[in-house]
């Protein structure tokens, strides 16, 4: 396996294929595709591999845009708002609604986890100790 430590910043511009560790696992990619496709549809292996590349490109693309915003604003950490902003900026604003729901839920659970208390006003923690 190629050692990617200290890789050059031109990695995203590689005209060749990415190394496996720069791709999301093909099993995960295939599973999500299968869930979406009609039951009798098939996916060629080449298509699954292409999709792997496509989603990695998407990650790089969105991250780069979010990171650029942080750089302009002199911040070091890319946060959730930066990602939302980047998606809208790149034309994926229809993801905003579902992501907002995911984020809301994520924050709820994260707070519950870190404080480790029954918050009372959260329906899911009403039960328990």
């Amino acid at each position: 396996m190629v050692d990617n430590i200290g890789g050059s910043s031109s990695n995203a511009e590689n005209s060749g294929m990415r190394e496996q560790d720069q791709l999301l696992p093909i099993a995960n990619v295939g599973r999500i595709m299968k869930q979406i496709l009609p039951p009798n549809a098939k996916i060629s292996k080449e298509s699954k591999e292409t999709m792997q590349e496509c989603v990695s490109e998407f990650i790089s693309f969105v991250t780069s845009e979010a990171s650029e915003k942080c750089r302009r604003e002199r911040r070091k950490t890319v946060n959730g708002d930066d990602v939302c902003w980047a998606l809208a900026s790149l034309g994926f604003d229809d993801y905003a609604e579902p992501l907002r729901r995911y984020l809301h839920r994520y924050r709820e659970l994260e707070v519950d986890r870190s404080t480790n208390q029954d918050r009372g006003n959260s329906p899911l923690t009403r039960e328990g100790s």
Partner: protein
Amino acid sequence: MVIMAEEEENAASTVSEFPKGRVKKIMTLDKDVKRVSSEALFLVSRSTELFLQFLAEKSAQVAIEKKRKTVNLEHIRVAVKRHQPTRDFLLDDLPPPSQPNKPDKHTTPAARPKSDKPLPGTRRIDQFFRKPEPENPAQAEAQAQSPIPVDES
């Protein structure tokens, strides 16, 4: 206990379908990206799922239009072209179209020429079984012995 519909539960899930470490690794390939909050990592993972679902669905639609059961690269390509934001960042990254199957006037399939000279440094296999031209006496002598090492143990 609150019972949620499966779809709603999935939407509310705080676990991404993709391994966090791998998503983070891809994000940090860009050396300008130094630190990433856990929220950012989560949202990138989730939005990537959405994108994959979107592209898979659109590609399948193209396959259906073309009356094919198997989604292939060209279906993906058409799906990418149809969505401008996706087209902008992805179209040039797709593998080039494979060569058409029809025979072309100008390019014939690379048939192995039968009477060509062998490439320098190599010998055609049938030369092993023929008495060589005495071009190079040393070579001729070497060839007189068995050219193929046999493991006698």
